[in-house]
C-alpha cells in the first residue's frame, strides 16, 4: 500500500509538472503596452478580440470563413491607425476552435475571458454561443455574434450579448410569408434536429400556417445523414407542393438531388444554411430554380458589398462561404463602439454598443433592447445557372426605415417646392435658383435613400 501511495503522490506531482508545462506553452499574446523607448511614438494599446468558431469537424469551412472575415476587419482597422482614449490602438485576434461542441465552447470561452480580451466575436453555432454567452456575461465582456441565429441567445437577458444578423424567428417568419406568395397550398417541412434547423423550421411552420398554407408532412433527418429517400418518398405521397428544409448545405444539396431522382416536382426552399456555393456544388442541377434566404441584403445590392467581396477574394484567394461579411461587421461595430465611448475598457464601451448606428457592409446596424439586430431584413435568392440570384427582400424594419426615409425626403421635396412657389411670388430670380437647388438636392436624397435600401 505504501508503495502505491507514493506512486500516486508521484503521479500527482507529474500532473503538476504537466499543468505547469501547459501553462508555459500557452501562447501569450504580446500584451505590449506603450513602448517607452520611443519617445516620439504615441502610446500604443493592444486591443485583443477573441474569435471562436469550429476549425475542425464538418463545419470547419464555415469556421475558417468567419475567421477570415474577422482577420480582414482587423487588418483594416490596424491599417487605419485608430486612436482611442489618446492612444494608438492595435487590434489583435485571438482565434479559438470550439469544435462546434458546447463543452469545448465553454472551455474556449473561459480561455478568452482569462486572456482578458476586450471583446468577443462569435461563436459560429448557436449551440456553442449560448453556453459561452454566460461566461462572457459574468465577466462583463461584450460579445457580438455574426452567425448565431437562435433566438435564445439574446433572450437569456445578458447585457453583453449582441448579434448582427436576423434571428431564426425573423427568418422563419419571412420564409413562411414568402412560401405563401409562391402560389402553393401544401408544404412539407423537414428539419435536421439541430438547434438551428429545428428553430427555423418551427418558425417557418407557424408563419406558413398563419398565411393559410397547409403543412401536410413534418419529417426529420439529422446533420450527418446522406440518404433522404425514405422521408422524401413519404412527402411525395402527401403531395406537397413545396418542401422546406431547416438545415445545412451538406444535407440540403443531396436532398434536392434525391427529390429529383424520386420525381418530386415540389419546390425546395431553405434558410441561410443552404444559401451557399456548397449547396449548389452538392445539389448540382437539382439546385436549379430553388429558393433560399439569407439574413440581410445581397452583397451586390449593398453599397459596400462588391468592394468587400473584392477585398476578401484578393486577400484570401477563396470565395466568401457564408458569414464572413457579418463577422467583419461585428468587428467593425465593436471598434466603432470603442471609438464612440473613447475607451477600450469593456465596462465603458459596452453601453455604446447598444447605441450603435453603424453603416456596415451587411446592413445599417442598430440593436434593440435584447441585443438583436433591429429590423433585420431577409433576402430571398433563387439558384439560377449555378449562381445565387437575388429575388427580393422581405420583412424586417429595414424596409420600413427605408420607406420612412423616403417619406422624409419626399416631405423635404414638398417643402422645397413650397419655398419655390413662395420665391416665385417674390419674383426673386436668386431665390428661385436656390429653391430649385433645394428641390434637386432633396430629390437626390430621396434617390439615395431608396437605393440604399
Amino acid at each position, binding site marked *: *500500500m*505504501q508503495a*502505491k*501511495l*507514493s*506512486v*500516486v*503522490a508521484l*503521479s*500527482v*506531482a507529474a*500532473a*503538476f509538472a*504537466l*499543468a*505547469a*508545462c*501547459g*501553462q508555459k*506553452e*500557452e*501562447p501569450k499574446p504580446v500584451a505590449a503596452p506603450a513602448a517607452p523607448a520611443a519617445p516620439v511614438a504615441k502610446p500604443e494599446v493592444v486591443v485583443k478580440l477573441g474569435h471562436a468558431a469550429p*476549425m*475542425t469537424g464538418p463545419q470547419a469551412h464555415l469556421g475558417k470563413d468567419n475567421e477570415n472575415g474577422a482577420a480582414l476587419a482587423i487588418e483594416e482597422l490596424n491599417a487605419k491607425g485608430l486612436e482611442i482614449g489618446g492612444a494608438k490602438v492595435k487590434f489583435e485576434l485571438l482565434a479559438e*476552435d470550439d469544435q462546434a*461542441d*458546447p*463543452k469545448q465552447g*465553454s*472551455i*474556449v470561452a*473561459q*480561455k478568452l*475571458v*482569462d*486572456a482578458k480580451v476586450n471583446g468577443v466575436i462569435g461563436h459560429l453555432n448557436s*449551440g456553442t454561443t*449560448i*453556453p459561452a454567452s*454566460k461566461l462572457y456575461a*459574468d465577466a462583463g465582456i461584450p460579445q457580438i455574434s455574426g452567425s448565431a441565429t*437562435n433566438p*435564445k441567445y439574446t433572450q*437569456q437577458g445578458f447585457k453583453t450579448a449582441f448579434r448582427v444578423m436576423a434571428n431564426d424567428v425573423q427568418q422563419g417568419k419571412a420564409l413562411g410569408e414568402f412560401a405563401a406568395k409562391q402560389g402553393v397550398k401544401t408544404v412539407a417541412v423537414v428539419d435536421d*434536429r*439541430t*438547434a438551428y*434547423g*429545428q*428553430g427555423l423550421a418551427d418558425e417557418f411552420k407557424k408563419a406558413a400556417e398563419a398565411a393559410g398554407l397547409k403543412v401536410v408532412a413534418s419529417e*426529420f433527418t439529422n446533420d450527418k445523414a446522406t440518404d433522404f429517400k425514405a422521408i422524401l418518398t413519404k412527402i411525395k405521397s402527401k403531395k406537397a407542393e413545396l418542401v422546406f428544409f431547416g438545415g445545412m448545405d451538406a444535407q440540403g444539396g443531396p436532398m434536392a438531388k434525391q427529390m429529383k431522382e424520386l420525381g418530386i416536382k415540389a419546390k425546395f426552399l431553405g434558410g441561410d444554411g443552404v444559401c451557399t456555393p456548397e449547396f449548389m456544388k452538392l445539389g448540382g442541377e437539382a439546385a436549379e430554380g430553388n429558393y433560399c434566404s439569407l439574413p440581410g441584403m445581397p452583397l451586390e445590392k449593398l453599397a459596400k458589398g462588391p468592394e468587400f467581396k473584392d477585398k476578401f477574394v484578393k486577400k484570401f484567394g477563396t470565395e466568401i462561404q457564408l458569414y464572413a461579411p457579418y463577422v467583419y461587421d461585428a468587428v467593425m461595430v465593436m471598434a466603432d463602439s470603442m471609438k464612440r465611448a473613447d475607451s477600450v475598457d469593456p465596462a465603458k464601451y459596452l453601453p455604446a454598443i447598444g447605441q450603435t448606428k453603424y453603416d456596415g457592409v451587411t446592413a445599417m446596424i442598430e440593436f434593440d433592447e435584447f441585443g438583436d439586430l433591429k429590423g433585420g431584413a431577409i433576402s430571398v435568392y433563387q439558384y439560377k445557372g449555378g449562381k445565387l440570384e437575388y429575388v427580393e427582400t422581405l420583412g424586417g424594419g429595414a424596409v420600413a426605415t427605408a420607406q420612412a426615409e423616403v417619406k422624409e425626403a419626399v416631405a423635404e421635396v414638398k417643402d422645397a417646392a413650397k419655398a419655390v412657389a413662395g420665391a416665385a411670388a417674390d419674383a426673386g430670380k436668386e431665390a428661385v435658383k436656390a429653391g430649385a437647388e433645394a428641390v434637386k438636392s432633396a430629390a437626390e436624397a430621396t434617390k439615395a435613400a431608396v437605393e440604399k435600401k
Partner: protein
Amino acid sequence: MKKWLNPRSAFGISLIAIALIALPFVAAMGGQAWVRIVNFAILYVFLALGLNIVVGFAGLLDLGYIAFYAVGAYAYALLASPHFGLHLPFWVILPIGALLACVFGVLLGSPTLKLRGDYLAIVTLGFGEIVRIFMNNLNAPVNITNGPQGITLIDPVAFGDFKFSGTTQIFGFALSGPQKYYYLLVVLSILVIIINLRLQNSRIGRAWQAIREDEIAAKAVGINTRNVKLLAFAMGASFGGVAGGVFAAMQGFVSPESFSLIESVMILAMVVLGGMGHIPGVILGAVLLSVLPEVLRYGVGPLQMAVFGKMLVDPESLRMLVFGLALVLVMRFKPAGLWPSPERKRELTGEA
C-alpha cells in the same frame, strides 16, 4: 485500513491532500481555463470509475454509458431551471438523478443479460443512441426536454446563499467559480474512489470478478449472475447520473449534442488505456485522455514554430492525429493499459 495509519502512508496521503488542495491555484496561474480543464478531467475520472464497475469489474462491454450521464444531466436541468419553473436544491436532485440513472441501468441491463462480448457492445451502443435521440426529440407533442435547443439558465450548485458560480472571497482568498466546483468534484470523486475500493474487495466485487473470468463457473458456484450483473449496470449507471448532474450545474446549459456516441467511446478508451479494473489506472487514463488534447492544443503549434520556424501542419488537425496515434501506441506497447493491476499484469506476461 490500519496500514494507512503508519507514518509512510500518512506522509503519502498528506502529500496527495496538499497537492489536491493546491492544484486549482497552480492551474489558475495558467488561467482559469486550466481549472476548467482540470474540472472536466475530474468529471471524466468520475465517469471512468463508474464505467470501470461495468467493464472493468464485471467484464460487460458497455458502449452506451453516456446515456446515464445524459439522464443525470437532464434530471438536474429539468429540476433546477426556468424550463419547468422548478428550482430544487442540488442535494435533492443529485440523488434523484442517480436513482433515475440507476433505473435506466436496470432497464438496459435486463434485456441484455444473455448477450456477450460484441453483441452486448452493439446493443448498449444502440441504447445510448436511443436515449440521446429521445432527448433530442421530446419537445413535441409535449415539451419535456426542449429538443435540440437544450435547456439554458440551469441553477448553479448552491448551499443557501453560497453559490458555486462567480467569484467569492473566503478567508481572504478569491475563489473563482471553476475553483469552487473543483473542490466539490474532488470531494465527490474521493467518495467514489472509496466506494469503488470497498466494492472491489467485497463479496459483490469478487462475484463480478468471477463473472468476468468465467460466467458459467460463477453460476456453478452459486452466484446469482442475473442479479449481480444487474447490480453492476445499476451501480455504474448511478455514478454516471451523479456526474451528469454536476456537469449540468457546472455548464448551466445542456443539449443532446453533449451526449453523442463518441463520448461513450472516449470514456471506454480511458478505462482501457489506463488499465481495466484497476482503480489508479483508470484514474490515470481519464486524466491523461482529457488533459492530453488540451495540452496538445497549446503544444503543437509553438513546437512546430520552434522546430521548423513555421507552421507546417494546421495544429488543430495535428492535435487529433497525435491523440489517435497515442491510443494506438499505448495499446501496442502496453496492451493491458498504462497501469494494470498486478494480477492482470502477471496473467498477461505469463501467457506471452
